[in-house]
């Protein structure tokens, strides 16, 4: 027990120490280089505090976060709602898979101009739709896979107890596929951050990506670096948040897998 705890403590220490070391090296290197393209880390951090904490938080960070949240949420709902029936139906997959594979293979920037034309918008409508569209595929494909992978004995059990198809989906299919749905959600969430930056960088009047673009266009390198740091942090923190949710929701899954491995 104490050994385990000591191990855990040193693991956490290492996890913190390595990035701190890298930051320190960065600071030393930028201070020495004195290159306007690579401002000092301390300068960037001061700028970071002034920009994001909190003068422009509401103006630019909140819109970006809202777009990520809305786009991601839409993708989760549509991905699950479409993925479950497709996972259950061979015919459905036969008909739908070529289309899914086609759109999935599409590079997102290729659809940026048309999304603005089609949606008549460079505002939230276009941004959220764009994020949702590309976040959909990992969730959809993982849901289909998760449903297909369900042990047939579980489904037979549900059927033998006379559970109707909706109840079966709600009480058996959905929870059984949930571990893989979460795997898709993790991929999608990082995509959501990418798509947020992409759409805002392309055409926008607000958001972190927009700040990045304006800074670049006006050769303001320090704010640009501050935006980059913020985007990295956002992606990291969102992922941590999702992992925490997953840990709670899928607590059974870790225990179950550990039990299966111990046998």
């Amino acid at each position, binding site marked *: 027990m104490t050994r385990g705890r000591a191990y855990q403590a040193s693991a956490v220490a290492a996890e913190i120490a390595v990035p701190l070391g890298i930051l320190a090296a960065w600071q030393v290197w930028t201070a020495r280089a004195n290159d306007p393209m690579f401002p000092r880390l301390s300068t960037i951090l001061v700028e970071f505090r002034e920009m994001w904490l909190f003068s422009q938080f509401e103006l630019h960070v909140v819109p970006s976060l809202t777009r990520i949240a809305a786009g991601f949420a839409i993708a989760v709902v549509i991905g699950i709602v479409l993925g479950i029936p497709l996972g259950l139906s061979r015919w459905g997959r036969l008909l739908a898979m070529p289309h899914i594979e086609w759109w999935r293979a599409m590079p997102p920037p290729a659809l940026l101009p048309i999304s603005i034309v089609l949606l008549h918008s460079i505002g939230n409508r276009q941004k959220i739709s764009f994020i949702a569209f590309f976040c959909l595929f990992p969730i959809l494909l993982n849901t289909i896979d998760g449903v297909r992978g369900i042990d047939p004995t579980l489904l037979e059990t549900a059927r*033998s107890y006379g559970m109707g198809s909706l109840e079966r989906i709600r*009480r058996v299919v959905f929870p059984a596929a949930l571990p893989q749905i979460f795997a898709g959600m993790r991929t999608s969430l990082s995509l959501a951050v990418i798509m947020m930056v992409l759409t805002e960088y392309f055409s926008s009047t607000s958001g972190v990506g927009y700040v990045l673009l304006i800074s670049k266009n006006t050769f303001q390198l320090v704010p640009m670096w501050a935006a980059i740091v913020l985007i990295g942090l956002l992606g990291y923190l969102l992922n941590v948040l999702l992992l925490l949710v997953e840990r709670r929701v899928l607590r059974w899954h870790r225990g*179950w897998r550990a039990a299966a491995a111990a046998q």
Partner: protein
Amino acid sequence: MSQNGGPVLEIRNLAKTYGTRAKATRAIADVSFSVADREFVCVVGPSGCGKTTLLKCVGGLLRPSSGEVLLRGKRVTSPPEEMALVFQEYGRSLMPWASVRNNVLLPLRHKSLGRRERKELVEEALGAVGLTRFIDHYPWQLSGGMQQRVAIARALAYQPSILLMDEPFASVDAQTRGDLEDLVLRVREEFAVTVVFVTHDIDESVYLSDRVVVLTHAPTVVEEIIGVELPFPRDQIATKELPEFAHLRGHVYRLIKRELVEESEPGESVLAEAAQKGVRE
């Protein structure tokens, strides 16, 4: 046993073929037998003889290719509410995300019962299999034998009049198996259920049942139906020491051995595969 009032369950000329034409595999050729109210019938046969297929047809999970299953004179076309099926693979038929309580509760959710009634049924069933203390555990935190007891409790809470059991104790150790056999005999009395119990274990079939239905290898027909006149309550030691037990056991053994010699092993795996496909279709 009260056997008046006609059979509860009738299997009439049941046949099941997987696949079509050239690829067709005849699993069951022609099986007929009936089960009286509160009777305990064991179905034994050589491995690969389609016992599981037969039970799934009886339970309304598989459609027979021809012939029929009658429950109180009515044809079974989908899983009837009066039956509960206990699978061999307890580890795969229990929901790993649900506690023991919620696993037992699951099939009750769509029955028109009050909240309290449901709770009582769950607790009563878990009490009957001796798992009250483990009600808030997850199934995977329990041993194999205990998991199968959860599956049995789930079946009992569903309040079936017929319990179908598909080699339920095939994957537990011998000691646990004996305990579980006695448990089934006890709950059968307590809950007044009719039991159709598929097994490949000859001792088990004789020990548990009122009658043993012996099947041939595939394409399967009924080889013989044997009445078991051993006294109740049965006892793992005393019953098995009776000369009558030895005699019956020997008789069933000879029937099955003859089947095994005759069979040139054309395809247990083929059949198992076909059964899986049939399930997924």
